């Protein structure tokens, strides 16, 4: 068994809304190995950001709450921790960077103050030493003139620079795990590549694990070791990046890949996944992907597919691969590869 740093077991994060609980995260399990990168992929509203926030117990209150499950970090269940214990973990052992570098820095404070604070709240460094370390980390994330940046306000920096500052801040306490929630979505393409390369470099240097939350399969291919595909609050498929790209199994994953423009399919119509993710208050009773699935049959509407057993080689949440499901129509069975050109 590989060295597991973070393990989620059947995590459930619900929101109280009119018309019952919105099950934003509904039984998510995955694990992140030490020094490795796990990507969570899925479209908007599938619960991937909430999964990230749930790990740090930062689900927006009072509507959101964690209903059950386990968040095992180095073997300890974080859900048993008090607020004060969690505060110790946040920013020190587990750091998080967000999608919006434009608004994630305090507009009224200079960069230096914010970097120093990140260290001082955890007591890792103080005063002059903290300032020196802050400057070093700014230089490390590729900002020229760190002494000038220290005295600048967030609005004086560009988006890419701010995301670098955010990364410097997140890494200032040498966390064991970095949760990066769409770290490059708000940036333009050239900056995206730089930021990703930076995260990978820093990962190799410090040996931290990265949980990368994204909707961009291109980024996944570039940086992650393994992937968990989320749909409607559940992980529908998880695999190593190589396996997933070689042979996607879940119809949803297949659909995602099929809708990426490709040079080898020049001239053909792009395949699209019909419809949208249903609202979290009204997940379908059976398979949640059934209304949009090309392979769905009667059983899919009636029975929810089970998660694969823990020790499964390629866990997939789909009746197509469940040996207990007997009434699978012959046309769609096994030959799922046909949807791929």
């Amino acid at each position, binding site marked *: 068994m590989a060295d597991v740093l973070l393990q989620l077991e059947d995590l459930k994060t619900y929101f109280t809304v009119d018309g019952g609980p919105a099950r934003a995260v509904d039984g998510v399990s995955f694990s992140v190995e030490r020094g490795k990168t796990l990507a969570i992929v899925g479209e908007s509203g599938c619960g991937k950001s909430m999964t990230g926030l749930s790990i740090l117990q930062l689900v927006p209150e*009072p509507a959101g709450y964690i209903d059950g499950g386990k968040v095992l970090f180095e073997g300890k269940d974080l859900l048993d921790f008090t607020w004060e214990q969690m505060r110790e973990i946040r920013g020190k052992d587990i750091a998080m960077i967000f999608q919006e570098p434009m608004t994630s820095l305090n507009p009224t404070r200079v960069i230096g103050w914010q970097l120093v604070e990140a260290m001082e709240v955890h007591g890792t460094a103080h005063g002059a030493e903290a300032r020196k370390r802050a400057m070093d980390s700014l230089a490390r994330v590729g900002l020229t003139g760190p002494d000038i940046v220290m005295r600048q306000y967030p609005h004086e920096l560009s988006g890419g620079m701010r995301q670098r500052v955010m990364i410097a801040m997140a890494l200032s306490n040498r966390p064991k795990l970095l949760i990066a929630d769409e770290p490059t979505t708000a940036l333009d393409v050239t900056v995206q590549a730089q930021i990703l390369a930076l995260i990978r470099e820093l990962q190799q240097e410090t040996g931290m694990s990265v949980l990368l939350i994204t909707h961009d399969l291109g980024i996944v291919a570039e940086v992650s070791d393994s992937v968990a595909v989320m749909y409607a609050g559940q992980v529908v498929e998880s695999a190593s990046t190589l396996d997933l790209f070689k042979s996607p199994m879940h119809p949803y994953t297949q659909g995602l890949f099929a809708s990426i423009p490709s040079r080898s399919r020049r001239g053909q119509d792009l395949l699209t996944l019909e419809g949208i993710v249903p609202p979290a208050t009204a997940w379908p009773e059976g398979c949640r992907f059934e209304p949009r699935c090309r392979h769905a049959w009667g059983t899919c509407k009636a029975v929810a597919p089970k998660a694969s057993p823990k020790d499964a080689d390629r866990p997939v949440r789909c009746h197509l691969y469940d040996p207990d499901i007997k009434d699978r129509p012959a046309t769609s069975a096994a030959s799922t590869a046909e949807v791929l050109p």
Partner: protein
Amino acid sequence: MFLSNLIPIVIVAVIAGVLIRAGREPLWAEAYRRLFKDRQVMVAIVIMMLFVSVAVLDSIGWSKSKSETPQTIIDRVFKMEPERTYSAPMATETMGEPHLHKLKHKHIFGTDGVGNDVFYLTLKGCRTALIIGFLTQLISMPLALLFGMLAGYFGKFVDDFVQYVYTVLDSIPSVLLLIAILMAMEMRGQERGLVQICIALGVTSWVGLCRLVRGETLKHRDRDYVRAARALGVSHGRIMFRHILPNLLPILIITATLGVSGNIIAETILTYLQIGVPPGIGSWGNMIDAARMELARQPAVWWNFTAASSAVLILVLCFNIFGDALRDAVDPRLRS
């Protein structure tokens, strides 16, 4: 004696220091530039400074011997021997007497019923007005800040509790509440003075600001930068007072500035109702109170009333102009 003269000087020095220090922050440097560009605002600032310097000069005083009550600089410069009774502005004789007397001095604003110089009384009112204006604000602001931020940040039952408290407080007619508080303090043996009035006004006037602070905190609580700070493991207290508070500062300062003028008016009204500044202390409220019967005289004695109300009007007007300009200068939404 020496110490009590030091206090006003220290206060002015601290305020000046803060203002100069703030000028180095980009936000305020920009605000200063915008403020100083406007001529109307400059006039308001100059007039406010005049009032403030009168108040400061009226706070510095000394006595020649121990038995004597100390005379402030304003006393020494402007105090004149009382005339026999009323005299009109710039008049040479008293009025309203069977035999008119020659005046000993020239009085630009005339004299009141006991022959005191109205201009001198008006100057004496400055200190009272400014003390009540600022000290009240100094008492009510921390209350509003603390309760507003707690309610906005923590929400839930903390919010319910704070809201309940200030809604109830706001439902009691304010003059009655003020009278009750002042009476209660008097019954506990505290003589009614400026400080007591400031406390009474302070604990009754924080509701508006508290509502504002609560709303703003609520808005900032879910901002990305607060979320990011939480993800860094920053504590609630630090987030509230070191992250959110600086973002509320502009709006707080503006509201506080506008609040000062409200307090000055409140003082005049309270004193007019005989529950404010005691008669011994010079205040515009006392002057207006003393003048109300005299307007009915034939010929009308209008000058002491006019002098006091104009002083209130001018000072409050300047504060309001300044406060409004400050809001425009600081509010990023109004920036081009």
